[in-house]
């Protein structure tokens, strides 16, 4: 079996470097969380007498939350750094300072 056969459906395969595991976000979690966050924010705004439950609040906020959640989950801008990278960075910086 070739290396390419081991690569999952969501993974890329680099012809030179072999299988590359793609770091994936959580777009489904983001979309669901964003949708419900939009609904809850709409209710919060209504309860705190800032905006009634009009079209924009009931339809717009959940839609906005869904899209933003999907984007945040897909691109994961607050991505965790890998452990080995996090441990290696201070040492590397210390080496750079020493030199």
């Amino acid at each position, binding site marked *: 079996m070739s290396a390419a056969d081991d690569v999952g459906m969501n993974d890329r395969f680099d012809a030179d470097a072999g299988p590359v595991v793609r770091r994936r976000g959580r777009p489904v979690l983001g979309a669901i969380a964003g949708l419900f966050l939009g609904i809850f924010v709409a*209710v919060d705004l209504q309860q705190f007498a800032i905006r009634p439950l009009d079209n924009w609040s009931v339809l717009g906020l959940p839609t906005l939350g869904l899209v933003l959640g999907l984007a945040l989950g897909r691109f994961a801008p*607050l991505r965790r750094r890998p452990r080995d990278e996090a441990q290696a960075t201070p040492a590397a910086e210390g080496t750079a300072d020493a030199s």
Partner: protein
Amino acid sequence: MSANIAAARVRRFLVVAATVTAAVALPLAAAASAGVSGPCDGTVTIDGRTYGPANDTPGNPIVIPAESGLVAEWEGHTDVVITKHSGSVGVVVGPAAIPIAKWAGDNAEEAVEASDSYPIDSARDLLPVDLVGLYQVEGKHDGEGGSCSGSAMVRIEGNPLATPVGAGAAVGTLVTGAALGAAAMGRKP
């Protein structure tokens, strides 16, 4: 720090900033106002303050204080005689309105004005839970001779966190916000 890491951090900051800006600024846009259209007019007096069709924006609502024993005294009139009429009042929820009152009649006496008083506690007793917050109320009255429609904002004063709906929404916001944050952090490498 390399230039690539710095650029990545700037990109992440911009995405987060844009998200926060959109989430905070957009809901503060003013709601559209409607007032009353047609040959109808009216006022309601609550706790010594008189309200009319101009009270149709979130910043200028009809205020119902969180006190017991209040009475709403209302009067309404039409410029023309409307017979065989029907009407309704409802609370706006998105594209729909939840009806809270309906009426109909022949108006054989051809009345053009009406007035009455209504104890607010009676309305509170009809609700299964305490409600506070801002509500858009819309209504219509039409029949032979003319038709009217309009809307108003009603703010029921009180502590939102002391009501089941308000407390539940606050907890839901925190939980879903945390879940969104987890999604934005991606999977563990």
